């Protein structure tokens, strides 16, 4: 069989003392790439080997401080900055209450760093070590102590190094061949891990996506909670059978008069007295400048969109409608010019009725405008007409 390339030479020792002695000699011999393998940390071996103090603590400290900062930042940002709310009159940034979590996060960061940094610096996990090819190296984790000098060491010289180790009172010395398989993780496992990692990202991606897009679909209800409540809603529909019309809000019974629904002053309410339109604002209302201003305001809110602020029937709606009409996709009748003779001649009651019941394409505004305001608007319309007449 052809000579394999050496990985290292390995010497076995049976007790701590001889190991220590050997380690010191190897150290003094000036080897660099060498190591001891022991079942437990042997105290003093570090000095014997000349191992320098690791930088791990500083890394941990740095990460700990980071954690501390992040912990505090998280609490400040969420509670005091991004979404402050009053809680028991306490300050939104209540530092004494933030200490515990800050502390926990600090410890968490430090601990994870200490753990993972240690493995990384030890360049573990390792898939396979050439030493493990040697049968009795298994005892390195049991009751034997090994000194291993690697071939990569500049001073390494197969035979002489072996003799050198023999000279240190080793129980046995063996040569370790370079393995034919790589020491890193085989490809199939790597691919598997990679796929798993990717797979784990998918749900996260989906959630992230869901957060940023709107959907017409109702929420998925695992638990209904209060999304569906045992009560009637104003515009809701009942299940079939409860009411013929299926409406949750029940209509008022014909002929009943509720509190505050008494409409004694017919003229005021309907604009008609005994079948005739009233010709003046009912005496129940006190007409003064405020009243007219009120009318102006309400006119601006309810009427101007179509009739325009001057009542000429040229409101924004009308103009938009003309645009659409120009594009040939709308039927449109211009709103009435309120200062036209037609309207001027109408009795106040008639105007009032129009507001209340609507007329032609104009809808009824009774539900939106209370009685007093309707009359105020009527009055303002008169004012507009007068203005227009001048």
């Amino acid at each position, binding site marked *: 069989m052809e000579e394999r390339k050496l990985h290292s030479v390995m010497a076995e020792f049976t007790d701590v003392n001889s190991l220590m002695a050997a380690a010191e000699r190897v150290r003094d011999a000036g080897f660099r790439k060498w190591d001891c393998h022991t079942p437990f940390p042997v105290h003093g071996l570090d000095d014997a080997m000349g191992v320098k103090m690791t930088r791990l603590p500083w890394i941990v400290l740095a990460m700990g401080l980071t954690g501390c900062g992040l912990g505090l930042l998280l609490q400040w940002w969420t509670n005091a900055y991004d979404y*402050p*709310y*009053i*809680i*028991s*009159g*306490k*300050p*939104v940034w*209540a530092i004494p*209450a933030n200490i515990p979590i800050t502390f926990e996060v600090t410890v968490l960061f430090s601990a994870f760093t200490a753990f993972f940094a240690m493995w990384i610096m030890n360049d573990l996990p390792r898939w396979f070590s050439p030493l493990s090819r040697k049968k009795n190296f298994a005892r390195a984790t049991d009751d034997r102590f090994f000194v291993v000098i690697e071939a990569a060491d500049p001073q390494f010289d197969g035979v002489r190094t072996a003799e050198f180790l023999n000279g240190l009172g080793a129980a046995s010395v063996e040569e370790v061949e370079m393995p034919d398989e790589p020491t890193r993780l085989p490809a199939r496992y790597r691919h598997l891990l990679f796929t798993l990692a990717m797979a784990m990202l998918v749900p996260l991606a989906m959630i992230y996506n869901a957060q940023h897009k709107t959907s017409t679909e109702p929420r998925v209800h695992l638990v*209904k*909670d*209060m999304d569906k*409540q*045992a*009560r*009637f*809603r*104003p515009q809701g529909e*009942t*299940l079939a059978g*409860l009411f013929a019309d299926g409406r949750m809000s*029940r209509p008022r*019974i014909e*002929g*009943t*008069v*509720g*509190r505050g*629904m*008494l*409409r*004694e002053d017919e003229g005021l309410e309907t604009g008609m007295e005994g079948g005739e339109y009233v010709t003046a604002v009912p005496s129940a209302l006190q007409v003064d400048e405020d009243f007219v201003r009120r009318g102006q305001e309400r006119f601006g809110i309810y009427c101007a969109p179509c009739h325009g602020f001057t009542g000429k029937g040229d409101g924004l709606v009308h103009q938009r409608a003309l645009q659409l009409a120009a594009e040939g996709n709308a039927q449109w009748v211009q709103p009435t010019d309120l200062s036209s003779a037609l309207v001027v001649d109408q009795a106040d009651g008639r105007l009032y009725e129009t507001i209340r019941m609507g007329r032609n394409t104009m809808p009824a505004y009774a539900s939106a405008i209370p009685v007093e305001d309707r009359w105020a608007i009527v009055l303002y319309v008169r004012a507009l007409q007068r203005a227009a007449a001048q």
Partner: protein
Amino acid sequence: MCASELKALADELRKGQDGAYRNLLLLDCNPAYDLPGDLEFVGALEGFRGAGGTVIHLGLYRDETAGHADWHLPMAHAFETWADGTAWDGTMTTGQPLIDPLYAGRSVLEMLGWWTKDERSAKEQVRAGGPADGKAWRRALHDGLVAGSAAAPLQVSAKALPAPQFGDLSATPADGIEVRFMPDRHIGDGRWANLGWLQELPDPMTKLTWDNAAMMSFATAASLGVEHGTMVRLSKGARSVEVPAYLMPGHADGCVTIALGHGRTAAGHVAGLDDDEIEPVGFDVNPLRAHDSASLATGVAVEPLGKPYPLAVTQDHFAIDEIGTQGREQRLPNLVKEGSVAEWQQEPRFAKSAADYWGKDSNLWQELDPETDDRLYKPKHKWGMAIDLSSCTGCSACTIACQAENNIPVVGKDQVIKGREMHWIRMDRYFAGDPAAPKVMSQPVACQHCEMAPCEQVCPVAATVHSSEGLNDMVYNRCIGTRYCSNNCPYKVRRFNFFDYNEDADQPGNEVMKMAANPEVTVRARGVMEKCSFCVQRIERARIATRNEDRDSRIPDGTIETACQQSCPTGSIVFGDLMDEGSQVRKAHENPRSYAMLAELNNKPRNLFLARIRNPHPAMPAAAAEEAVTHG
């Protein structure tokens, strides 16, 4: 009908064929249940039917009487019908329907019309009775009465009778015990027995729900060897009933008081229905009554049966031991503050404690002040409430009003026994001093809306936060139900939905139940905490209305009435804006009698109590005792 007439009727019915009657119409009544036992009315009915008579019953429920009738006709509820009536002075009153009959019921009026071949609808009949003029009629409907329709008073003369002579009232009757029957404080003679709200509303004095009990004094109980919460048999002659005993401080010796209206066997799914094997709630004591003294039975033998019976009370759930009693006596003066007139005249601020003067200095942080803190918008209002203990009678109307307004579920007897009742405002009732003649105090307790609420800070998900207007808001759909807030509430006003208490409404056929819920208030799901919200929905309604008028104006005082305030017959509850100098509540808070409960905890409640002033009539025997307790 008076007792003798009832007797006569019963006898007449027993005659059957030979009797004067062929048909018996029972309109909106339940004699099979609520008539005194000695009439044996059921027997009479059956006899009558057996003899070929026909019994027709018109009622809201297929109740006990319906069970013994040949015909049961569904009656329309008063809210579903047109009706009229006559007030004590003869004034005509009107009633209008709010909704069409849900179950195609007919009113008594309609039925009588129908039987008398009157073709007119109820509406027409009522209208006919009213003023002809349309306007006047509308006014009558609107006001509910026809003004000026009172009958002219008659001139009568009466001659003075000699004053009646009473013996020694305190002497206990020699022959056995005297039993006093009273209509239940909530379900009356039983006609409202099937309403869960009323069944679960604690009795103002006994705090008993879902039951009636034989109330007696400690002395009487001792002499009879009766224990609290055990069954006793009350028997008079052949007739006897078994009821649980309730030892009531301050009850007169030698007599027993029992509420009527319980033990219904055909009331419905709430109060008991034999057909569906639903146990009756409470005990029917009508059998013990006699038609000639329907509200009193003398010479009743009381026999302790010893069998324990679970009574669902909302206070003193378990026998309070010596330590507990001491603890209670010790802290009561700090919780329910009272003073005699003398004390009040001497120092109107007698209710104040040092804690009422603590201010921001006692905090270890710069108090977060919504009015100045620019991170939170500045409020226009500071909502607050005040409850005047002087005028509070403990009637508990507030509790039920709140329940109706805020969709508070009824949890049932077993849950009340576990201490899981849901009332947002509860009526705390305490007895102080000698159990034989105690002083009674009642105090309505709702969420105090503390400005530094201990409940808020502990919620991990901020489900209960403070609005800048000072409301202690409960965000139901944010709540995950740790119940930590409840632990930290010194007033224990928070309520938890241990189960889904509304599932019935989702059962097929129960949809009509949903009509009972206030559309403006969330119906809470299982697992969330809830509590008084100061009727926030009403605040918001007022806010919207005001905003519609003028964006910048503040909600005027009196616009908002909380449900409890609205229903309080004595007006002891005021709610409003503390920032508004003129407001009622502001005045109440500035009232020298005002004090904060547990002020020493520095929670700064927005709900203050006005200390009660006791002023018993000097002639009353109680007066002396009162003074003794107040100064003791």
